């Protein structure tokens, strides 16, 4: 069992080892839905929600798989749970806010193939977190993901009015900004390691 304090786990997941900017997890939605601030925040919220649910499920599943000695099924069972959770969220959003459903478009079902969520489930298993630790880890990772997405969306909204050279237009420019953001987040390294 891992003995890290909940606060350290939270800071670690959201800032120091930010899932997007340090682990490169969830790059596809990061590049795809970071065009507008509003969609970015809602996408972040949806991902955070799926992360928390699947983190709890992954904790239970891992205990179950260990008890029946079938650890080789880990990957397959995790991905099924994540796919089911995403389906649930999709139905919920479609019912509650059709406008948001349209804005998120293809990226909503693609949360299933968002590396950040499966990555989270695998990392928490590897680190041997308990239930409370897992939930805090998921919350931190989700907030870190939202933070990165919102920062990027803000920068890109401003950039729409800037004159950029033709050479860097499109994905290249987004990646350059992501690189600079990632440099900035490296400044958090060492935080919390007293």
């Amino acid at each position, binding site marked *: 069992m891992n003995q890290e304090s909940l606060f350290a786990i939270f800071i670690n997941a959201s800032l120091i080892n930010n899932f997007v900017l340090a682990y*490169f997890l*969830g790059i596809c939605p990061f590049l795809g839905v970071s065009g507008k601030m509003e969609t970015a925040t809602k996408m972040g919220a949806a991902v955070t929600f799926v992360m928390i649910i699947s983190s709890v499920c992954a904790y239970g599943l891992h205990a179950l798989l260990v008890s029946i000695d079938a650890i080789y099924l880990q990957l397959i069972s995790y991905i099924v749970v994540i796919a089911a959770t995403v389906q649930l969220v999709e139905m919920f959003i479609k019912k509650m806010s059709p406008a948001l459903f349209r804005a998120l478009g293809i990226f909503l079902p693609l949360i299933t193939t968002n590396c950040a969520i499966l990555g989270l489930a695998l990392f928490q298993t590897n680190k041997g977190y308990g239930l409370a630790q897992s939930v805090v880890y998921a919350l931190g990772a989700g907030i870190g993901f939202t933070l990165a997405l919102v920062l990027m969306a803000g920068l890109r909204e401003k950039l729409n009015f800037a004159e950029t050279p033709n*050479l860097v237009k499109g994905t290249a420019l987004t*990646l350059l900004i992501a690189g600079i953001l990632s440099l900035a987040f490296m400044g958090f390294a060492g935080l919390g390691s007293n």
Partner: protein
Amino acid sequence: MSQLTKDKTGEGFWGNLANSPSTNEFLKGLWKENPVFVQVLGMCPTLAVTNTAMNGLAMGLATTFVLLMSNILVSSLRNVIPKQVRIASYILIIATFVTMTDYAIQAISVDLSKALGAFISLIVVNCLILGRAEAFASKNTVGKSMLDALGMGFGFVIGLLSLGAVREILGNGSIFGIPVFPASFQEWVIMILPPGGFFTLAMWLMFFNHRKQKKAAL
């Protein structure tokens, strides 16, 4: 061969070869529809494990294997899988092969398995593989799907290798662990850290933009 001789545009052997449908399935992934530089798919492993050329190569080959096997299985089962549950079935097929690859790499090289870490398992959620299963293998014959998988897979290997090589040469002064610069070379440590991944990929994309714009200007 019949496909080769049918084409009578007279562009010579290579012209004919490139135009024949089956070779085209293979070649398109290597360059024209390169998954990394043109389609920008499967970015997570691309950026995360390419801090050395060796890691990039291993990751690329592992992905190619999974892509090939899942494309074969998906295309041979394409008339059996009901349409409503196809994505779920594809993911299960992919997850099975990834689990196999994961255990195989652990058995072959513990060091490599440690270096790639959870990213081998994360091949499951590589958009490239699910994308090919959905866009190509579910509609085409087994043979064509194999060629498509090999082409896309090697295109992915080329992408990862060119990222890994640049990052290792600049960040570590070596390639495949062999030093290429004199000892006085000051390594650009940032290149093997996360920001370096973003910058290197941005540079490659700019290079491809430049080529495209030059072609359009002609």
